[in-house]
């Protein structure tokens, strides 16, 4: 059908335009168009993520990527064996951290491999450049995988649209800009690759593809903790196929080999360890595995027996036995504690209120909050209403592959609604399903257009059979309206897609390209003002403190201090030890003398606070202070949150509670601030981030002294004084 239309088009082209050099055969033309589109999309995905490199410089953003960068640096300098067995004594003083056993090595190993291969080709790159550009590179690779996946589910047209959509979709760009050297940049590539390979394995039933998907799963496990999504979605998918009567040998081959090989490979990562057989989150996969064996047995017996009545009896016996055994095993395992229950991080996905009550650390991370509608619109734009349209098309043509993408889409959308961070996981599904909608619609519309042209040229048509003749007659009757409406709809679709591209570009440029470590603002005359205070403070630490100095700060800044300041920290972003963090929180919320005791017990030499009162920077420690109180109070009941609030309100001005006005965090943030004029027409000591004049302007420090304050007062470092000489 398509070839026939293209043939007539080609003869038109040759005759009307007579461009001799397009003498390629139709198949080659099609391949040329596809390859060139894919190349353009590949390049587009890469360059649209480069805004921050062009505007600022090539540096690592945010907090977590600094840890990844530090470990990658270590890996390239010391080698893989040292890296795998690394015990880091520079963080979580005095506990230290077993880095080799508590990280996901996929990202670091990937960047190191890229670095070594570039070095081998005699490109003298610095590891930081490789780290910064890893995420955009893998985003480009994701577009390729999306193309193949779309081709597998629907057809190559849908694949091309999917690649184009996912190249610029803001939901994905948010975590994979240049400089965002974080696990998700690589993990989404691995996720989509695993899913693609698995669907291909189910479609073809070949062991080779299932093996490939097991490797994809291994890569995913090594890259990100979100692999739990794969190990639960795939069994769920298999279960749905079994329930809808789509059990087949191919499914059996694909799932079994992927599960066994994937599980074994995944257990090689030390951080994951034995969780695949011991943790409740992975039990679904094992349950479905046994269910598959039961199905296979039933199928085989049915094949051997020729008597259906006998088979029914056998069926009854087996099913009751299998279900009984399964339930008993699960019950025994859970009750005896051998199978550990769902951890807090994932349990809060099923019960969103759980974290707020029980685990304040998880609840305090801003990325873990439930998603607002505006975020969905911001990150998905037109894909949001193309998604249900795509679901409709998928249901019209149900096959094993479309069932998979529907399930992936629905489950990931549910999780995206629970946690903002998981919009990232939903993005590939939404792009693929929307691509199906777009591709199918445009195909129908252009078919209408093409049939028009074919009908109008009676000379060059070929192969008109009876059905075509009747449809031609129908089309003749409504000829003018349908053609015009098809053209109008095509223009409409084109307009929508171009608006999508504009929106994505704008979002990338405005919202997702800020490095977070360098702040920018507009000055009074519209010129751009850069606040580089963070790096100024870290380099001050690096150059002006003794090598073994220990720095206490809130856990957000831990990774950056170790990576850039090269000093030991007390707590950092890994947040694996809640009590240690609570100790720091307690120190920050106590009076200065109590805090001094705690700091002496932890050997703290310097304290670092972030203060936004002068610049109006609102992500500073005073705004995070209530979380410090809550986390500290969760472990030490002596810290009570109501002591810091006035009538349930959090204030720092004259009406604030006395405990608030005298706690360590307040003193360290507002030391000498009372004499500063921050805004024209306001009294000295006016806090621009809170919009109030502070309550206690006369701050005196007894046990600490000010060591350094950055040029815009954003980072303030204090030295802890040694105890007084005794007589």
């Amino acid at each position, binding site marked *: 059908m398509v070839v026939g239309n293209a043939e007539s088009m080609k003869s038109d082209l040759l005759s009307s335009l007579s461009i001799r050099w397009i003498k390629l055969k139709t198949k080659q033309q099609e391949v040329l168009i596809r390859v060139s589109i894919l190349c353009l999309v590949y390049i587009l995905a890469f360059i649209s993520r480069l805004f921050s490199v062009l505007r600022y410089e090539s540096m690592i953003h945010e907090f977590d990527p600094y840890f990844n960068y530090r470990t990658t640096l270590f890996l390239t300098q010391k080698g893989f064996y040292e890296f795998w067995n690394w015990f880091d004594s520079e963080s979580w003083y005095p506990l230290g951290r077993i880095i080799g056993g508590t990280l996901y090595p996929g990202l670091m190993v990937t960047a190191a491999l890229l670095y070594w291969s570039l070095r081998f080709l005699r490109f003298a790159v610095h590891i930081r450049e490789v780290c910064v550009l890893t995420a955009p590179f893998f985003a480009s690779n994701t577009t390729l995988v999306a193309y193949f996946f779309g081709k597998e589910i629907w057809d190559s047209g849908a694949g091309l649209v999917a690649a184009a959509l996912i190249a610029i979709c803001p939901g994905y760009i948010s975590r994979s800009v240049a400089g965002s050297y974080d696990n998700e940049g690589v993990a989404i590539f691995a996720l989509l690759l695993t899913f693609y390979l698995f669907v291909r394995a189910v479609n073809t039933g070949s062991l080779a593809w299932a093996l490939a998907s097991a490797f994809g799963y291994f890569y995913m496990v090594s890259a990100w903790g979100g692999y739990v999504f794969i190990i639960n979605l795939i069994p769920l998918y298999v279960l749905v196929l079994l329930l809808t009567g789509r059990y087949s040998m191919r499914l059996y081959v694909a799932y079994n080999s992927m599960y066994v*090989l994937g599980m074994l490979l995944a*257990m090689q990562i030390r951080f994951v360890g034995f969780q695949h*057989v011991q943790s409740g989150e992975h039990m679904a996969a094992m349950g479905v595995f046994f269910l598959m064996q039961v199905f296979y047995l039933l199928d085989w017996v049915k094949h051997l027996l020729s008597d259906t009545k*006998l088979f029914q009896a056998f069926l009854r*016996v087996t099913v009751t036995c299998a279900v009984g055994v399964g339930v008993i095993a699960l019950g025994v395992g859970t009750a005896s504690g051998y199978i550990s229950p769902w951890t807090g991080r994932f349990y809060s996905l099923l019960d969103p209120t759980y974290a707020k009550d029980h685990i304040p650390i998880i609840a305090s991370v801003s990325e873990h909050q439930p998603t607002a509608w505006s975020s969905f619109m911001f990150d998905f734009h037109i894909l949001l209403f193309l998604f249900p349209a795509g679901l409709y098309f998928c249901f019209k043509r149900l096959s094993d592959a479309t069932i998979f993408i529907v399930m992936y889409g629905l489950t990931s959308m549910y999780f995206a609604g629970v946690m903002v961070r998981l919009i990232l996981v939903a993005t590939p599904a939404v792009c693929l399903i929307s691509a199906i909608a777009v591709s199918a619609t445009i195909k129908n519309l252009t078919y209408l257009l093409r049939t028009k042209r074919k009908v109008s040229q009676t000379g060059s048509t070929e192969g008109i059979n009876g059905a075509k003749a009747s449809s031609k007659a129908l089309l003749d009757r409504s000829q003018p309206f349908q053609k015009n409406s098809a053209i109008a709809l095509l223009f409409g679709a084109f307009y929508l897609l171009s608006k999508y591209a504009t929106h994505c570009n704008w979002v990338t440029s405005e919202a997702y390209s800020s490095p977070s470590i360098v702040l920018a603002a507009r000055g009074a005359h519209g010129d751009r003002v850069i606040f580089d205070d963070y790096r100024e403070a870290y380099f001050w630490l690096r150059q002006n403190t003794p090598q073994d100095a220990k720095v206490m700060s809130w856990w957000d800044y831990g990774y950056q201090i170790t990576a850039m300041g090269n000093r030991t920290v007390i707590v950092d972003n890994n947040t694996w030890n809640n009590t240690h963090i609570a100790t720091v929180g307690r120190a920050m919320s106590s009076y200065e003398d109590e805090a001094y005791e705690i700091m002496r017990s932890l050997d703290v030499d310097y304290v670092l606070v972030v203060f936004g009162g002068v610049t109006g920077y609102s992500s500073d420690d005073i705004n995070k202070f209530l979380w410090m109180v809550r986390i500290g109070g969760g472990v030490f009941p002596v810290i009570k949150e109501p002591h810091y609030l006035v009538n349930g309100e959090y204030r720092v001005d004259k009406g604030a509670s006395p405990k608030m006005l005298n706690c360590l965090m307040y003193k360290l943030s507002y030391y000498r601030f009372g004499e500063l004029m921050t805004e024209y027409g306001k009294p000295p000591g006016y806090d621009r981030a809170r919009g109030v004049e502070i309550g206690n302007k006369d701050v005196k420090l007894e046990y600490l002294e000010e060591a350094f304050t950055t040029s815009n007062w954003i980072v303030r470092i204090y030295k802890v004084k040694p105890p007084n000489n005794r007589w």
Partner: protein
Amino acid sequence: MARSTGKDAHALFHALRSAYPATPTNLKIIDLYVGFSVFTALTQVAYMAIVGFPFNSFLSGVLSCIGTAILALLRIQVNKENKEFKDLAAERAFVDFVLCNLVLHLVIMNFLG
């Protein structure tokens, strides 16, 4: 009820026993291999229950058996009676099988510790 199920079970058993020898010889060899690896896995479980030692070695042992048993997926792909696999060459199926086994045993060697 019990008597009828008892009779059913007997009839089932006889039907199975009579139908099984009809399968071709090469498939029966694969079945023998599968049976052997399952037997080894059970022995390892029993040993682990008695002695109770390094978990990763136990896991790799058991999973090697299960893995080889599962890899008798070869059986499915080679069986001529399966409609879905009739256009898959037997050599290709065997190569896949060898490849998967290779990967499986490499991983197990790494895991044994």
